[in-house]
C-alpha cells in the first residue's frame, strides 16, 4: 500500500489553511503531479514543497530559515523514500523510530508543517498497529502522541491510544 497519497496532500493544504496553488492529478504510474498556470511539478516531495513554499513566511508553521527549510525538504524525501511503503513490521518504521530518538519535533524545536505531513502519512500504519508494536517503536509513538494533540491535526482523525508503560525498551 502506498502511504504518500492525495489525502496527505489535501490534508496538508487544509492544515495550512490554503488552497492548492493548481490542479493535482495522478499519472497512471501513480506519480502525483501539480499543474499551475505557469508550471508543472511532479512527485510527492516536490509537489508538497511547492505548496508549502507558496505559503511564504505567512505561517509560523512553515520553517523560515534556510537550515530549517533544508530539514523540511529532507523529511519530505524521507516520507516518499522510506515511509511510503511502510507497515508496522517493516524496517522503515524502525528507521523512523531511530530518527526520532533524539528529537521531539522534525524541524527545529516546535511543531511545523513537516510534522503534519509525517502525521498524515503514517496515521494509517499507527491506526492499525497493535499496542505491543507501538511500544516497540516508542520514539515514533511518543512523537505521534504529542503531535496528534494539536487541535488542527486532531480534526477528522480519531485519537490513537498509546500505552504509557513500555514493556519492551531494549
Amino acid at each position, binding site marked *: 500500500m502506498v502511504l504518500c497519497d492525495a489525502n496527505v496532500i489535501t490534508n496538508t493544504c487544509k492544515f495550512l489553511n490554503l488552497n492548492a496553488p493548481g490542479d493535482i492529478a495522478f499519472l497512471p504510474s501513480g506519480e502525483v503531479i501539480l499543474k499551475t498556470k505557469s508550471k508543472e511539478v511532479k512527485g510527492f516531495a516536490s509537489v508538497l514543497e511547492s505548496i508549502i513554499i507558496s505559503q511564504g513566511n505567512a505561517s509560523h508553521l512553515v520553517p523560515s*530559515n*534556510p*537550515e530549517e527549510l533544508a530539514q523540511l525538504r529532507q523529511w519530505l524525501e524521507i516520507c516518499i523514500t522510506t515511509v511510503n511503503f511502510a507497515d508496522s513490521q517493516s524496517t522503515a518504521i524502525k528507521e523512523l523510530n531511530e530518527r526520532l*530518538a*533524539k*528529537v*521531539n*519535533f522534525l524541524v*527545529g*524545536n*516546535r511543531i511545523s508543517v513537516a510534522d503534519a505531513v509525517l502525521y498524515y502519512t503514517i496515521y494509517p500504519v499507527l491506526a492499525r498497529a497493535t499496542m505491543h508494536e507501538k511500544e516497540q517503536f*516508542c520514539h515514533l*509513538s*511518543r*512523537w505521534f*502522541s*504529542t503531535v496528534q*494533540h494539536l487541535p488542527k491535526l486532531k480534526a477528522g482523525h480519531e485519537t490513537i491510544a*498509546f500505552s*504509557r508503560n*513500555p514493556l519492551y*525498551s531494549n
Partner: protein
Amino acid sequence: MASGTLYTYPDNFRAQKVLIAAQYSGANVKVDPAFVFGETNKKEDFLKKFPLGKVPAFETSDGKFLSESNAIAFYVSNKQLRGSSDLEQAQVQQWLSFADSEILPASCTWVYPAISIMQFNKQSTDRAKEDVKRLLQALNSHLLTRTYLVGERITLADIAVSTSLLNLYQYVLDANFRKPYQNVNRWFTTLVNQPQFKAVVKDFKLCDTAAEFDAKKFAEFQGKSGGAEPKKEGGKKQKKSESEKEPKKQEPKKKQEKEKEPETEPDAADEALALEPKQKDPFADVPAGTFNLDEFKRCYSNEDESVSIPFFWEKLDKENWSIWIGEYKYNDELEKVFMSCNLITGMFQRIEKLKKNAFASVCLFGTDGDSSISGIWVFRGQKLAFELSPDWQTDYESYKWTKLDANSPDTKKLVNEYFSWSGADSKGRKFNQGKIFK
C-alpha cells in the same frame, strides 16, 4: 491576569522559573531594577512585606504579597501551565516538589564547589554525583514515552524541573556524563530552545568541560564576599556570615563537621552566588540571527577559500551581522614587518572574548618602512562590537572604522581579497602577511 513586581537578583534560577511562566501566560511581571541583594531585602519595609527577607518575592499590582518561588510561579501561570485536570494539577505539584527536594540539593552540593564558591569536599561531591545520576535516570525513564513531563503540552512541571537543572547542564554535565540520559537531553534541549525560555535564559549552552573546584578562586571569592559583608544589617545575618567564613581559618576541624551536614551548606553558597553579580554577556541584547559563526570558522579553517568564501556569502545573515573595515591610523609609524604583526596579534589577545561573536582577517601590506595595516571584520549586530565592552577598547581607537554595505559588489570584492589574502591596499602596496581573528 496576574500582574506585579518581582524582587530578585539577576539570573536567579528560581526567578527564571517565574519569568518563563509569565512568558507563557502573558502575565505582566516586572523585575524591580532597583533591587540590590543583601540590601533591599534587609530593609524594614521589605521585611514588613516579606518577613523572611528571601527572594524571589512578588508584590501584586493591587498590593498583595507572595514569597516562595513555586507559589509565585503558580500565581502567574495560566490554565495550561497549571495542568488541565485534577490529576494533572497534582502531577505538576509532584514535579515541583521533585525539583526542590530532590534535584536542587544534589545540584547545589555538586555545582557550587565546582565553580569554587563553596568549599570542596570529595565525599559530598561524590555522593551528589551519584544522586544526580539516580535522578536523571528516573527522569530518563519517565521521558522515554513522553515529550513533556505532564500531559502533551508544556506545564509548570517542565519549567520548574528544567530550571532546577540549568546549573547542572551549564557547569558540570559534560557530553560524557549526560550521554546515558538521551531522553532527558532531548526534553531539556527542546525546552531551552522555546522562544519563551530564550526570552529569559538567553542563549543557553550545554556544558563542554565540567567545572572543577579551584582553591585559589575559592579563596578570592571568599575575600570578595567577605568584603561585601559590612553592607549587611541585622544581628542574625551578621552571625551567619561570620560562621560562613570560618572554614578559612580552621580548615581541618571544619572539614569534619562539614561531612556531617553538607545539606545546610548550599543555602549559604546560594546567597554568596547572589552577591557576586554574574558578568553580563556584552552581546546579551544583540540578536544572534541565523549566521552560525563557528560553522563558518570551521569551514574557513578546513576548506579552500574557493569554498569558504561562497559559504560565507550564502550563510551571512545581513540583518543581524555587519561587515566593517578597520584601517590603522598611524601607518607612517610602522617600521619593521614583524613589529606590525605583533601589533595585530597583541590586539587579538586583548579582545580574546570577542571571538565568540566576531571574525576578522587583518592584513599587512607593503614592506619594511612602507606598509599599512587594515582588516575586514564581521560582527554580530549592526554596531561596532568594541563599544559593547570597555575590556575591548584598548586598540580600537587606533583604527578608522567604516561599516560596509553587505549588498554592494565593492564589499564583496574587498571581503574576497582580505579573506583570501590577496590584493593590495589603497596605495597599491602588495599583500605581505595576514592574521585571522577566529
